[in-house]
């Protein structure tokens, strides 16, 4: 069911908000073996549904999403269940306030029914780094959900709810969207407030969503976006419908991602999507951006640096996990952090601390930032000639659970295509483009210049419509 299906059922009196929530909770229960969700907020959700039903009964305005259930990634502070970030560190952390994104959706009448699994503190690309066990792919239980917003992607794909919230720092929405055959939106940096979202890397963290239709995704982004006094990096309303957006005519296919390094099926599906774009009347040609091959290296210096900083607050002093039987302050920090973080968290803290340390800062962090500026310049230059860029979202379809083993670099490679837009603050969405012969979904990524988010939805919608007409 889409958002529009639920809204029209409620409007027609065929369904109440309570029934919509009950159906979602039932579906969550039926699909629990996928381990998409870490917690349900059943009691609070049902109470909210009753409130909304009462409002609707009285003919009051209950909001644009009145009665629509959704799920938030468990790094969004929300009421009704702990906010764990899928870590032992925050296993029992109850948020005293809600993330701005959650608040805005609830003010619009949407109802949060639960929290979705992720790689602990959003570090990973498969949701296997969750301290509470991995989520399975919606299309093949032996495969990964992708990540880090794997639980959110799978919950949408399994139709538990019509949309879910995720955070995308370097592909954490787009890549699992591709792996599970749903739409995944990473907006322009600053479009949606980060307030109340457990920080990973502040300069690339964005809040976005998963949905089954372009219309739904666009509606959710429209409701969440806008300036927030609590987040200085938020922009004016990027999704404002009154905002003039240049129509897309010319599209560039990033040729650096259309070669032998990419899975053959992924290539075929992407090429087919490009044909659909042409059929929809767009002028499409290959473009090259050689610097993109360095984007992973930049990303895995800058992001761990920010990660090491943002995770410094988890020290066992004020809240979160505190080790037992400690005797000294050093032990309090060391043991609490050792027990509270998963291996991948610790790896990133180590890398980040290293690249920021005195004597290495210039050689790593500053150099990576300079390269980042060059990358942004390259995008800027390309967007002078093209209105949109396109590439596969991920080099492969969903891989097997455990396939990357103990080799983090293999896992990092799955992010090769998605980190560029993150470093440059660009909007990018992953749209389902087809399935492999094995039935695994593959997504393509549409990338725009800053604040042209609406164009991405427009192109995705047009390609879908033209393809359906044929």
């Amino acid at each position, binding site marked *: 069911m889409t958002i529009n299906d639920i809204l029209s059922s409620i409007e027609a009196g065929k369904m109440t908000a309570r029934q919509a929530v009950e159906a979602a909770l039932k579906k969550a229960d039926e699909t629990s073996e996928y381990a998409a969700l870490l917690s349900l907020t059943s009691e609070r959700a049902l109470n909210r549904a009753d409130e909304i039903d009462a409002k609707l009964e009285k003919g009051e305005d209950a909001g644009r999403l009145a009665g629509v259930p959704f799920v938030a990634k468990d*790094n*969004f*502070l929300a009421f009704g269940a702990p*906010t764990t*970030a899928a870590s032992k560190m*925050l296993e029992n*952390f109850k*948020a*005293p*306030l809600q*993330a701005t994104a959650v608040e805005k959706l609830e003010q619009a009448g949407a109802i949060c029914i639960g929290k979705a699994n992720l790689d602990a503190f959003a570090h990973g690309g498969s949701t296997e780094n969750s301290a509470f066990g991995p989520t399975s792919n919606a299309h093949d239980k032996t495969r990964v959900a992708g990540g880090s917003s794997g639980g959110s992607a799978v919950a949408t794909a399994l139709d538990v709810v019509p949309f879910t919230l995720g955070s995308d720092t370097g592909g954490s929405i787009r890549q699992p969207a591709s792996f599970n055959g749903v739409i995944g939106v990473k907006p322009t940096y600053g479009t949606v407030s*980060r*307030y*109340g*979202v*457990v*920080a990973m*890397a*502040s*300069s690339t963290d964005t809040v976005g969503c998963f949905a089954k239709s372009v219309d739904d995704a666009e509606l959710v982004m429209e409701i969440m976006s806008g300036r927030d*006094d*609590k*987040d*200085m*990096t938020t922009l004016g309303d990027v999704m404002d419908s009154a905002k003039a957006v240049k129509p897309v005519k010319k599209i560039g296919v990033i040729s650096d991602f259309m070669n032998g390094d990419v899975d053959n099926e992924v290539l075929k599906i992407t090429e087919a999507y490009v044909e659909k774009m042409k059929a929809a009347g767009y002028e499409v040609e290959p473009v090259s951006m050689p610097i993109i091959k360095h984007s992973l290296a930049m990303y895995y210096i800058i992001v761990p*640096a*920010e990660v*090491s*900083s943002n*995770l*410094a*607050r*988890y*020290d066992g*002093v*004020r*809240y979160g996990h505190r080790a037992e039987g400690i005797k000294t*302050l050093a032990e309090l*920090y060391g043991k609490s952090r050792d027990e509270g973080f998963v291996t991948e968290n610790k790896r990133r803290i180590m890398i980040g*601390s290293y690249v*920021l*340390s*005195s004597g290495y*800062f210039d050689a790593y*962090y500053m150099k990576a930032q300079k390269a980042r500026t060059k990358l942004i310049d390259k995008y800027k230059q390309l967007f002078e000639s093209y209105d949109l860029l396109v590439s596969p979202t991920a080099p492969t379809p969903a891989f097997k659970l455990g396939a990357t083993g103990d080799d983090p670099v293999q896992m990092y490679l799955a992010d090769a295509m998605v980190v560029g837009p993150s470093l440059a603050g660009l909007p990018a969405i992953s749209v389902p483009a087809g399935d492999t012969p094995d039935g695994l979904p593959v997504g393509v990524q549409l990338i725009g210049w800053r604040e042209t988010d609406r164009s991405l939805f427009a192109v995705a919608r047009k390609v879908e419509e033209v393809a359906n007409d044929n």
Partner: protein
Amino acid sequence: MNDKYELTIGIECHVQLATNSKLFSSSNNDARDKEPNLNVNPVDFGLPGMLPVLNREAINLAIRAAKALNSSVAKLSRFDRKHYFYPDLPKGYQTTQMYQPIIEAGYVDVPLDVGDDVRVRIHHAHIEEDAGKLTHYSDYSLVDLNRAGTPLIEIVSEPDIHSSEQARAYASELHKLMTYAGVTRGDLYHGNMRFDVNVSVALKGSSELGTRAEVKNLNSFRSVERAAEYEFKRQVELLEAGQSVVQETRGWNDDKGTTTSQRSKEDAQDYRYMPDPDIPPVVLTDDDIEKIQKLVPMLPGQYRDNWRDLQLDRSVMHAVLSNSSLAETLEAIRIESDNKIVKRVFNWFASAGDFDTSAVESGLVGPQRLSELSQMVGDNKLSSTGAKEVFFALFDEANTGKQPEDIAQAMNLLQNSDEGEIEQIVDAVLADPASSRSIDDIKAGKDKAIGYLVGQVMKQSAGKANPGMAQSLIRKKLDT
């Protein structure tokens, strides 16, 4: 010792800004005498997902401070994160300005008790947040985050200070500048200003500075002076004994008057500074800066210039300038009155000692009544002693709004200048046989003896006779 070695001092001063809320949150910024952890919200507490929102008021106060420091304001400044683990630091990093501080190089001209002013150059000053406070007990410690996130500016001087007296005078002058400019409440007891003093010694004439030791967290001018003095002796003794000074951080024990080693350079932490991605750069235009700096009232240096003609003792100037409202009041009197009148008011305040003259701050005792009171002495309506009594009485709440003349009258201090009445008393005194010896003395040219007769007149008049008038009447009567 002083001839052989030269002392060199640089001072870092932390100034708590007088903002209503904290640097990055809406929590109340006034932690004085508050229950622990009362001024704390989720941002100060470092909860997950919390973000800093920069307090523009802190930026405005830094812009004011820049004016007082003769510094330019950076058109573009940024915030950085300084990482270390300590329970009083909720985020695991302090937000500061490492790379692009808001206040650029400047200088402060420091007046001394003796000799010419010394110019201390300012390297830069940056905005940062304060940490919380730990209280240690036998087997546990308690954390109070009331002060965590309080905005500070740290003013970093060049090593231009060469004596402990200069160090004290610099600290005191900074305090004046920052309170006059409205940057801080300047409450030293509550830690509104704290000084880190970097001390080194080298042989006189040496082109290189010696190894420095930093004495941290001094909260009075006196302790700045004493710590500098102690370090000078300690370091010279080490050098004389053929040992070397260790680069380290030292703590000050105010009771013992000594410094002790806290941590050496080898233990120095790597703070892993990183630009703070949550806070956009602060961009200011000339117009922004000018608008704010226009609001800065007159600073101590300007007062000193304006008062030069009064030829005040340095100690009087110093005492009076320690309170900006007082300086303002005196300046208002100076503009309106002649030097004699205003100097008298200066002296009243300078000699007030511990007497609480804070009513000047609230405007309760203003320039008008003060100059009127001083004028009364000039007009012989009050004796100097009587005027001082009325001066103190002005600060009595019961006398709020009352004219000095009415107060003097109520206190029975008004001088009698009725010539007829005084003449009667003079006649009676001269007729008194006890006066005959003095009268003879005066006639014999011992003019001093007139004091006795005037004293008798004063006594007879219960102290109210105008002594000048009494004296001239006595002379007239004795025809001397």
